[in-house]
């Protein structure tokens, strides 16, 4: 995704020349540096005496060690274990200096003395000995290695190996297929068959009718049914085997209609509003005549499924939103200014630069369109059909945002994961192509899922207590896209997943009938990646804390299906809780109607559409975080997601500051509340008559849900030193732009024509 044709040079000099005093006596490490390998992981190539650059300004912090390329990752093993305590998130499968091959965006080799540079692809030759290797990563890191002291031939080999192995020829060559096969067999003994279905995974996968049934019941969509006409993908290659359709549409009807839809993606249900309105998505219809015919057949069926027989509105999603190429190019630009451009250079007109990338504009456009759909569903009480040509890209973003705004269930961790599973994975978002895991077709690459996560972050930023999970969770989730060990982000459709996993099971001698989720787990099995302690970073103290008072059986408040709290017309504190402070009956009836009552003096000067009125009305009242949630959408309300975009930038890292210091305090407070609660429970005791036993009261310590524990009075009050605005990540060694003042490269970039090698010039233009 790094600009293949850079509009402006990537490397710019802005730093004073680095004194070349690197002639320090280098003690070649004698001890053997062994990589930590996963099951099935093998070393392809390695080179010693490599220097990992930590800072662009000086080499004094640089690390010496061995660079290794395996069939899974690029690994750097420093010869001296870092003395600093690891205070940030540690990954169970990846070391501090490891980069999965799937995370590599661009592999660049440089020979400083010859003034050459080449972007390496698969199976390429390299005519010079590289002095430097720069790895541009999809998670926005930039890692730089220096080979000045390394054996030139082995350095070159490692570079070529890295380039080659990061361009797998075929999907099953991704390391996950090797790893999960081994893991399955090796951990088989530990599994008790059937004891915990799906390995204890709580997130519904929506690969079975029962998951859909449960969702239909949960949302009260009684006029909708699970339909299995797509069993064995007989109708549509990209829809899941089970879809939900109006009760009044027969399988026969659907089969008939399906031929007119792109990819045979017939209208399929996403979600139901408690008022009966449904959210439906479908693909485009090529022939406009057919479109009208289909509308006449499908719309009445959806109307019939609405308790009030309310009308259906179709929204042409791709007509009013940026397309995947727009989104891709915006992302490239925003990455350019955040991590690639020299820091000082973009300081001057930062806000304008951000605006020029259009990234926030697109984020806003998606949120806005989704909010308009919310108005139709909630305010106008109509069902909505999202129509997109393929129904596999923009529709995923819009439908999941709409549900996130309307249904608090999806703002819980499990709910959110089920939403991604339902509207992205099962709906056939082409993760394989959009992530460009095989690096085959750059045109198909687009960070749509990333855009969605940014939209979620914007809502989270505006309603910090409304989500069970944190921005660290969203960031980690985005990073997981580039670790090809989980089934979630590897496939274009559930058909493709089914085929590949069937072959996989056959090849790896996995018994027939074994659950896919068990032998090739989705990313939602977080224990594969992080310790229980680290996973507590996903928990939002504000959400947990408020739940604390009512969470008694481990069950967080879920989707309340009472119209009272849910409907926009009666949002806010339920009357029963108002404690008789004021009889609100009067105003409630007045506000009951949303569409009328435009006072003449309002409309005279300013025309207000019903939807504007709806939003104004909503914003004029306090938000119920367990009800409808609409994001504020002026440009001033949207912000750059700093944790995601700036976490690796050392110059942008606030030491001992940033929002994390507030999170730290809140976590401690909530932890303390949980302790108090357990005390309360103990006092209450099993039988109220007896004296309570406040025995070993910290028995719940292992269930404590906060990363930061309640402090004791002896702790210093100020936040710990390791808290920075990048926490739980660290910019140390993860973003090393090239200073390169006075080097041939910078001269070249400044216009001096000393790059004579045709190879270099050609490839540089690439």
């Amino acid at each position, binding site marked *: 995704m790094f600009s293949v044709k850079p509009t402006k040079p990537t490397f710019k000099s802005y730093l004073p020349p680095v004194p070349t005093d690197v002639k320090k006596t280098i003690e070649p490490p004698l001890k053997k540096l062994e990589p930590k390998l996963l099951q099935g992981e093998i070393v392809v190539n390695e080179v010693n005496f490599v220097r990992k650059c930590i800072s662009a300004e000086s080499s004094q912090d640089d690390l010496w060690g061995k660079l290794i390329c395996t069939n899974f990752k690029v690994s750097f093993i420093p010869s001296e274990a870092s003395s600093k305590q690891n205070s940030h998130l540690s990954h169970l499968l990846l070391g501090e200096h490891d980069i999965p091959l799937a995370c590599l965006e661009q592999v660049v080799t440089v020979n400083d003395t010859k003034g050459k540079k080449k972007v390496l692809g698969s199976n390429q030759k390299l005519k010079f000995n590289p002095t430097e290797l720069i790895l541009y990563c999809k998670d926005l890191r930039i890692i730089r290695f220096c080979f000045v002291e390394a054996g030139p031939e082995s350095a070159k080999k490692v570079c070529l190996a890295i380039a080659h192995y990061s361009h797998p020829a075929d999907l099953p060559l991704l390391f996950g297929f090797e790893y999960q096969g081994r893991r399955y067999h090796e951990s088989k003994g530990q599994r008790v068959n059937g004891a915990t279905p799906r390995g204890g995974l709580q997130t519904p996968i929506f690969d079975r009718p029962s998951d859909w049934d449960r969702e239909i019941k949960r949302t009260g969509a009684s006029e909708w049914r699970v339909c299995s006409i797509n069993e064995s993908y007989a109708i549509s290659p990209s829809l899941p085997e089970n879809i939900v359709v109006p009760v009044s549409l027969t399988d026969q009807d659907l089969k008939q209609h399906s031929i007119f839809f792109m990819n045979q993606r017939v209208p399929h249900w996403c979600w139901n509003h408690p008022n009966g309105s449904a959210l439906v998505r479908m693909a485009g219809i090529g022939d406009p005549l057919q479109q009208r015919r289909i509308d006449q057949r499908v719309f009445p069926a959806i109307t019939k499924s609405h308790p009030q027989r309310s009308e259906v509105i179709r929204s042409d999603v791709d007509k009013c939103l940026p397309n995947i190429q727009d989104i891709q190019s915006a992302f490239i630009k925003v990455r350019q200014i955040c991590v690639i451009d020299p820091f000082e250079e973009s*300081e*001057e*007109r930062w*806000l304008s630069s951000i*605006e020029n990338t259009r990234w*926030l504009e697109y984020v806003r456009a998606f949120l806005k369109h989704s909010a308009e759909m919310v108005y139709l569903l909630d305010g106008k009480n109509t069902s909505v059909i999202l129509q997109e040509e393929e129904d596999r890209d923009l529709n995923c973003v819009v439908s999941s945002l709409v549900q996130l705004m309307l249904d608090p269930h999806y703002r819980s961790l499990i709910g959110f994961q089920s939403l991604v599973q339902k509207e992205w994975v099962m709906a056939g978002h082409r993760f394989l192509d959009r992530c460009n895991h095989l690096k085959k077709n750059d045109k198909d690459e687009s960070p749509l899922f990333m855009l969605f996560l940014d939209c979620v972050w914007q809502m989270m930023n505006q309603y*910090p*207590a409304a989500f069970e999970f944190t921005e660290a969770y969203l960031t980690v989730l985005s990073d997981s896209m580039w670790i090809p060990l989980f089934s979630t982000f590897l496939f274009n459709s559930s058909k493709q997943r089914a085929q590949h996993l069937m072959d996989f099971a056959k090849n790896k001698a996995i018994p027939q009938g074994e659950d896919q989720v068990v032998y090739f787990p989705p990313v939602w099995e977080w224990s594969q990646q992080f310790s229980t302690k680290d996973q507590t970073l996903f928990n939002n*103290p*504000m959400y947990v*804390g408020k739940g*604390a*008072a*009512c969470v*008694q059986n481990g069950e967080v408040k879920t989707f309340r299906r009472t119209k009272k709290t849910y409907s926009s017309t009666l949002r806010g*504190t339920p009357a029963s809780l108002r*404690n008789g*402070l*004021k009889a609100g009956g*009067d*105003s*409630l009836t007045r*506000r009951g109607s949303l569409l009328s009552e435009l006072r003449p*003096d*309002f409309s005279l*000067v300013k025309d207000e559409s019903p939807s504007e*009125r709806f*939003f104004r009305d909503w914003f*004029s009242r*306090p938000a119920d*975080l367990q009800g409808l949630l609409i994001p*504020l959408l*002026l*440009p*001033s*309300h949207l912000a*750059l997601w700093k944790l995601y975009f*700036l976490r690796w930038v050392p110059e942008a*890292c*606030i030491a*001992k*500051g940033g*929002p994390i*210091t*507030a999170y730290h*305090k*809140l976590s*401690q*407070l909530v932890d303390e*509340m949980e*302790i*108090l609660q357990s*005390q*309360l429970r103990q006092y209450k005791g099993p039988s109220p008559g007896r*004296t*309570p036993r*406040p025995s070993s009261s910290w028995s719940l310590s292992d269930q404590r849900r906060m990363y930061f524990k*309640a402090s004791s009075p002896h702790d210093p*009050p*100020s936040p710990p030193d390791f808290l920075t605005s990048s926490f739980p990540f660290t910019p140390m060694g993860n973003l090393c732009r090239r200073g390169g003042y006075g080097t041939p490269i910078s001269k070249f970039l400044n216009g001096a024509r000393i790059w004579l090698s045709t190879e270099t010039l050609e490839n540089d233009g690439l």
Partner: protein
Amino acid sequence: MEKQAGAVGAADGAGPNRKPWSSATGGPATGETLDSPTGSHVEWCKQLIAATISSQISGSVPSDFTRDNKARRRPDFMVSKRLTPRQQDSQDEGLYYHGDSDSEHPSNALNLPALRYGAPVTMFQDQVPLLPGESVQTTVKDVMYICPFSGLVNGTLTITDYKLYFTSMERESPFVLDVNLGVISRLETISVPNQGENTKGLELVCKDMRSPRFAYKTEESHPDVVELLSKHAFPLSHSLPLFSFLYQEQFPVDGWKVYDPAAEYRRLGLPNESWAISKMNSSYELCDTYPSILVVPTHITEDDVRRVAVFRAKHRIPVLSWIHPETQATIVRCSQPLVGPSDRRCKEDERFLQIIMDANAQSHKLTIFDARQSSVAVTNKAKDGGYESESFYPNVELNFLEIPNIHVMRESLRKMKDVVYPTIDEAHWHSAIDQTHWLEYIRLLLAGAAKIADKLESGKTSVVVHCSDGWDRTAQLTSLAMLMLDSHYRTLRGFQVLVEKEWVSFGHKFAARVGHGDENHANSERSPLFVQFIDCVWQMTRQFPAAFEFNELFLITVLDHLYSCLFGTFLYSSEQERAAKEVQTNTVSLWSYINSQPEDFTNPFYVDYEHHVLCPLVSSRHLELWTAYYARWNPRMRPQVPVHQTLKELLFLRAELQRRVEELQRDATSRSSSSFSEHSPSHSAGTPLHSVV
């Protein structure tokens, strides 16, 4: 679709209008709205706790709890309740505000218990709340408020000697607009088409980024609205007293006692062997814009000081502002040296700086930070000013901080007003902000202050800070640097001391920069330097949410009363003038108001970063436009629910839980003779957070 109306006002709402004794003040139209979303949540949480707890414990307790609850709420609530109509109505654009809102935020009563002192609010004709000492000048019926967001509103306009109060009952909910007259920069007549011949239009261009407009019929029986407004908005231009001198409020705390220079210098360990407290300026003869008490080097004679005074612009000699408790490195402030085109020298001045350098044993250097752009400093030589030549001052290093002058800042904020009020250009919001350069100047200021702080902390070197006269940029820089270096100034009281010391006592020309009560709006002396300083402080609070004891509401309140002329704190330009006008006896201090209800202005996240030097990251990436202040009059710019609201709720929950646990513990120990010595009420000490709920 962004008709996000209804919520006007600042993040917390500013202004004391929630309180009976100060109901209509500088921060009108403030955000009950912000408290409210979460406010209702507090109530909800309370109910929930009550429910949960009562379900957990035996029968007698729930009723107990309820009673308790009521008892706690009632007295305060009654007070607030009485005030509720106007609380909610005081919203600018309050028409979006629904009549039953108060029932949705009973938290007003909980979060902000009304004080039980202070004069009761008098209501004029049951409509207009009046402050003690405030009197109604006129009432005009059938006035139209031209709302930029929703059109015309017909109502009644009341003008007092302190405020303009517009009410309308014609909407679904009563609408009130409350503008204190001090905030008005100029009155402009505007044309009002289609409203009949006798209709006049009036625009009040305000200093705080809004410009409400009215249309009214001119009838002979009506007094001239413009004339009356102008008289009371610009009393000094009409030989009338400022309202502060009429305001009769009594507060339980005397804010004038906040700053005692001797005590503050004592806190800094002064006097010591190198620095003395000097009374040379006790009658303001040495320098009429400096305070009476100064800290100067011990080893210098009064005669020398007088000679230095002659060599420094406006006689503003180098004096100590702050001293590092460990290294003895100092921040010294002054004005530019009067070098002139012929490069004049002053031996005493050179020696003075040498002594300042020598007073710090840790360093043999002295750094001068000249806030100005170097080119300007050079031009100043022609005007008899200039800068210290490094060749005449040995071991002195001169740095220019390249900060533009007051006129550039005024222009920048003027542009900002166009960007945020009344409408914003959605497509170019970010670049429009860039074009005002406001954030760029904020960055320059913070960068300058950070350099000063770093020089002292890491370089252990004393610094001298000046600009031209040493009362604008110098005050900004020294106070920001002190805020970074000294955690005391990051407390609620400490910050007041900082403002009183570096700004008020050292002669920042508030009267000229703000133009209190003066109709000459085009005066080029006006400039938002203090606003800029508060903005820098806000930026720091954003980067370090736990390092400051005060909250955003405090900063907004300070800015509102910078203009309001309700309090005497920011009146006049020097200590001498204030003494002559007997400001302390005749007016009320802003800090009296603030410190009478500190809980409203306290940041619940605050933990003392004791002895910790704050290094804000001076990068555009972390500087934001303070929309909660600049854009608060635009109802569509409703600010986001700040995290600290949730924290307050959680603190409330914790307190509730603690109470229950302790109660049960007491219960348990009294019921059973066997004592559980090992279970002390363990976590009552708890996480060090301000437990103000």
